[in-house]
């Protein structure tokens, strides 16, 4: 009924349908308030908290000494509940959950980040290229549409079984499934940047196409791209866990959160919660941290404008 295209008519409509004696106007505290100062500092804190958590987790996973080996089971300590000897308990074959959860952090997070990074580079380039108006870029976007019409898991599993798995394949798979997000985002941003005056003037002065892209478009889209990188990495962590859960992700002896959750899921019906809950918590916390970083960057970028997506 109402659209923003015709606010005047809309207003007229409203005033005629409303009797003059409706209850007193909405109390002032219900009105949208301007309160920017207070929330001003928080975005940066979000980035700092999320970022340092991830950094610490990865560093600890890489260099900290583990109490037990994450890949060699101890047959004398099977299915032990969390306690003094095994902080997070042990699983059915006697692997220490704490060591595995921590050592899986750098595997899962670095793979996800690498995949998202690759998607960012390729996706930004394609997105900027596709922001030029023309039949070619329209056609390209329809191909992206078509690609996204395939079920995500089918795409992933097909690629993995096509190539046989391995670290490089996992990174590539994550990159392929995250690329459409970057293409769409960068294209949308670049399209609006291309409309601005300074691009027009730069072209009039005779700036080359390359210079316009590198000096004017790229810096203006870089912010949203970095925020999207964090979001894509969060999605990638979850996708990687799902793949490992299905046995198509990180190869078995190496610890990964997804395969830990899978092997622990058998015991959940009989009360052994720790083999599932600890890797699941690590997974969830990492995703929260990545989302915090993305949110924070978004908020910093939009400055005074409240443009939260």
């Amino acid at each position: 009924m109402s659209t923003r295209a015709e606010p005047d008519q809309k207003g007229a409509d409203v005033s005629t349908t409303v009797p003059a004696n409706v209850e007193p106007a909405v109390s002032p505290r219900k009105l949208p308030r301007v309160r920017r100062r207070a929330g001003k500092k928080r975005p940066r804190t979000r980035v700092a908290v999320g970022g340092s958590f991830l950094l610490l987790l990865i560093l600890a996973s890489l260099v900290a000494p583990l109490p037990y080996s994450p890949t060699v089971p101890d047959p004398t300590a099977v299915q032990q509940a969390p306690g003094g000897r095994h902080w997070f308990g042990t699983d059915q074959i006697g692997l220490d959950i704490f060591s595995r959860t921590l050592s899986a952090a750098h595997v899962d997070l670095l793979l996800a980040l690498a995949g998202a990074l690759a998607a960012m580079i390729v996706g930004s380039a394609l997105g900027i290229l596709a922001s030029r108006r023309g039949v070619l870029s329209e056609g390209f976007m329809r191909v992206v549409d078509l690609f996204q019409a395939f079920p995500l898991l089918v795409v992933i599993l097909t690629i993995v079984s096509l190539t046989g798995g391995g670290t490089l394949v996992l990174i590539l798979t994550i990159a392929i499934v995250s690329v459409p997000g970057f293409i769409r985002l960068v294209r949308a941003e670049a399209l609006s940047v291309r409309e601005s005056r300074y691009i027009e003037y730069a072209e009039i002065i005779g700036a080359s196409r390359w210079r316009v892209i590198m000096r004017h478009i790229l810096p203006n889209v870089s912010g949203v791209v970095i925020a999207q990188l964090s979001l894509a990495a969060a999605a990638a962590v979850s996708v990687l866990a799902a793949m490992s859960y299905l046995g198509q992700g990180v190869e078995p002896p190496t610890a990964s959160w997804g395969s830990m959750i899978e092997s622990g899921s058998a015991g959940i019906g009989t009360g052994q919660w720790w083999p599932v809950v600890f890797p699941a918590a690590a997974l969830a916390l990492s995703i929260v941290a990545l989302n915090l970083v993305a949110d924070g960057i978004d908020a910093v970028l939009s400055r005074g404008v409240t443009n939260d997506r």
Partner: protein
Amino acid sequence: MTATSLNTAVEDTATPRPGTRAPRGSRHTLIRMIALRIVALPVLLFIVATLTFFLVHALPGDPARDIAGAYATPAVLQQIRQQLGIAAPLGTQYTTFLDQLMHGSLGTSYTSHDPVTTDIATRIMPTVELAIAAVLFAVVWGLLLGFIGAWWANRRPDSVVRGVVSIEQAIPDFVAGLVLIFLLTFKTGVLPQPTGQLGLLDTSPPSVTHAALIDALLAGQWPVAWQAFLHLVLPAISLGFVIAAAFARLGRSTMKSALEGPQIEFARACGLRRRQILYYASTVARTPLITLLAMVGGAILGGTAIVENVFSWGGLASWGVDSITHKDVPAVLGFVLVTGAITIVAFLILDIVVLLLDPRVRR
């Protein structure tokens, strides 16, 4: 994420492109637009079918060897290949595939030896039932959170909602499922064990759609329907959890900008009731939300696989994933075609609904 493409589709009809003649009647262009999309539907499906066919055939591995085992003689392997119809060159196989497709057949599954159409028919409704329940939960719960966040933007309820949403967003559906199973069936016993659509001791209702809840309702067996409902709750919530976060985020931002819009300011100035203000704001906010709904509806059919696996649901998606790992070529083709078709139809319906809701076109 994919909202942009749909939005541009809408803009294309609203503002005539330079160079084309201005449309005489909007309704005319609307009908032409819809007709064009319907005509394009089989073309798109054909492209999807072709792409999938060659992609699946590029998969390494020999289905004949999988069936016959490692010690089969070449003659036996050749015979199995003949039976499966994969002895012919790829081009011939492709034309046979298209020919079958035209006649409504998808071939015979390598693993179940049933027609793929039968395999799909027995599994699609359980997945659809689960998907609908999950989306229903996600929409109701997500919009509730989102609207609370928008109404009390930047205040206590908003930050609570923000926290809830970021937790929901961070827990993948299968993890949510496992944790919920532990808490609600093992710890407290509120809900039944994850044994699929019904308990092991329940008698299943006469199979019409193969979805337990729908079948029980059709047969009028209320106790069975109640059991089926109880078994549906956990998988639906685990699936809907992440989706609800998307609805909450989008609901909050669109509702918030709608509430800050000039017409709502005017409505407030007129002293409209809160209910009416919310109603007018939601008419502004609804289009992106419907877009998200269609995208979720289109994407969810392939995405239920792991949750179906966790709850031994026996649906289409987990079957499709199994087919990929077993290199069951006809089954994979059937799965991708059906889910692809549903996705494309969902987008088509979405575009029509958005066009019909847009007064600039409807006028």
